[in-house]
């Protein structure tokens, strides 16, 4: 199985501060990969480097088989990105947002129309299509953002805290949609703070102060550390690391 994402010693420094510190990992094609870590661990920074929004300080990486330094243009054609911050046009309607991004990806008129229909069917967006995106309730905004980022059928989808701030019912449904995408072969690279969501992932990595401190299958990790669930595991790992760094 070819790899969708490979990272080798990827590092990003902002001045003296190292936000991402030599992280290495690979994500297989079709995999649902959970990219976990506490606030400020460096998750967003790492994703931004993979999406070509930020130039790494050092290290290597490929996305969809394309080099992150040299093949930015090809990477952009094969990825979708749903950012942590709501970043659609609040003064355009849901439909206009979808139409705009579809046009930027140069989808043919007919194709674009069909996809918008299809996606709003799947995500239950129909009745919201003519409302301004800025006036949508949070959960619907996130569905719209998801729809926008998959309009062009990307092979790899980066989702940066896609379910931040929405209720559990919404989250459950949202993950149902993500699983549908994964079933169709899309690779998902997801960050989240919700450990119940992390359990849906095939594999997870846990980041702390810019480093990856653990990586593996959720149930394997739970067994390895003999914890009742991921939540406990996460808390224990992070506090242990924090103590270690406090000792130094």
């Amino acid at each position, binding site marked *: 199985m070819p790899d969708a994402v490979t990272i080798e010693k990827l590092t990003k420094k902002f001045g003296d501060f190292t936000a991402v510190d030599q992280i290495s990992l690979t994500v297989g094609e079709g995999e649902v990969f959970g990219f976990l870590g506490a606030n400020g661990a460096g998750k967003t920074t790492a994703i931004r480097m993979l999406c*070509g929004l930020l130039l790494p300080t050092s290290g290597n990486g490929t996305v969809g088989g394309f080099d992150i330094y040299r093949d930015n243009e090809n990477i952009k*054609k094969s990825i979708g990105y749903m950012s942590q911050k709501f970043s659609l*046009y609040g003064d355009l309607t849901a439909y206009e947002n979808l139409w*705009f991004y579809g046009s*930027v990806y140069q989808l043919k008129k007919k194709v674009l129309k069909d996809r918008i229909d299809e996606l709003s069917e799947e995500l239950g967006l129909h009745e919201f299509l003519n409302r301004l995106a800025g006036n949508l309730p949070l959960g619907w905004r996130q569905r719209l953002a998801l729809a926008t980022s998959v309009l062009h059928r990307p092979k790899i989808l980066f989702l940066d805290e896609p379910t931040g701030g929405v209720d559990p019912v919404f989250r459950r449904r949202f993950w149902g949609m993500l699983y549908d995408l994964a079933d169709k072969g899309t690779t998902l690279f997801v960050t989240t703070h919700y450990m119940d969501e992390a359990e849906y992932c095939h594999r997870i990595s846990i980041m702390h102060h810019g480093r990856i401190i653990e990586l593996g299958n959720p149930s394997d990790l739970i067994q390895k550390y003999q914890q009742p669930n991921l939540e406990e595991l996460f808390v224990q790992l992070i506090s242990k690391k924090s103590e270690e760094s406090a000792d130094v």
Partner: protein
Amino acid sequence: MIQTILALMKKELYQVIRDRNMLRLIFVMPIIQLLVLGYAINTDVKKIDTAVYDFDRSSLSREYIKAKTAGDYFIVSSENPPVLDAERGFKENLYTAALIIPNDFSENFIEKKPVNVGLLIDGSNANSASITSGYAEMIAMQFNRRQLDIPEPIVMRQQMLYNPESESIYFMVPGIVAVLITMITAMLSSMAIVREREIGTLEQLMVTPITVPALIIGKTIPFAILGFLEMSIALLFGVLWFGIPFVGSWSLLYGLTFIFLFTTLGVGLFISTVTKTQQQAMFYAWFFSIFAILTSGFFSPIANMPEAVQYITYLNPLRYYMIIVRGIMMKGASIDALYPEIIAMIIFGVLIFTSSWLRYSKRVS
């Protein structure tokens, strides 16, 4: 590429249309500006303080002065001040006009030779100066008509100080049009991109395969369209409401305006590459507009500026456009007369666009 550009343009225009404040700014501002100007023009200028130099001291000269100052318009504020102080009086705002009756006034009159009087006008307030001049002309004519026995009409020779071109509303309206589109296009274009950066949509755009040229073109053309709209409103208002004559070619003016918009949009774009927030962008655009207006010859002729400042004006695209708008509207200038200005604007536009382009490419990677 075309599809992307069209999508960007459509999106941008939708956003402007949805923004009530923006609409008000774009459509109401030109009309208010022109109306304010219109009221300033229509206000009667009365009680013009006048210094009178009567070198003739004859009954005829006194009669002439009496006629001149009979109405509400000219008030004698000082009689026979020292000659060399005429200009100082202007500078100290003692009077704004000076009537000069030469010592051969009655002599020429009797000998049936041409008779002259002089009128100096402080031209620093362009509007009241041109009205003053009009009144003086009118009164002189009335005097001539009453004195039917005079062989030759008395000729009044007028001289406007400080503002020899005698700016009037005809001169101001084309200038206002130029100023309006400068401010609107520089401000809107600089803020449009920074706003996307602020709310995060620029980042979302950057992960799409959109190219920098497509982004730049798609983000600037909508504002060029708005600039044309703005200009058309102001021009139509000026022509229909104030009856400003439009002597030259409309199509030439629109064509050259396109080149000018290239420079102001380029400046807006450049500002958006050096600023982080909409507020910053607005401040920079405002600063540019003020600089451009002050060194454009809009308020006072460039020839009256200090020499160092005169050189600086060459860096100002509005300086060239001001000449173009006034030339085409007032004198019917043809393209042949405007080549230096056109070339200067093209150079400015190409330079500013290229540098913003380079800065963009750097930022994206």
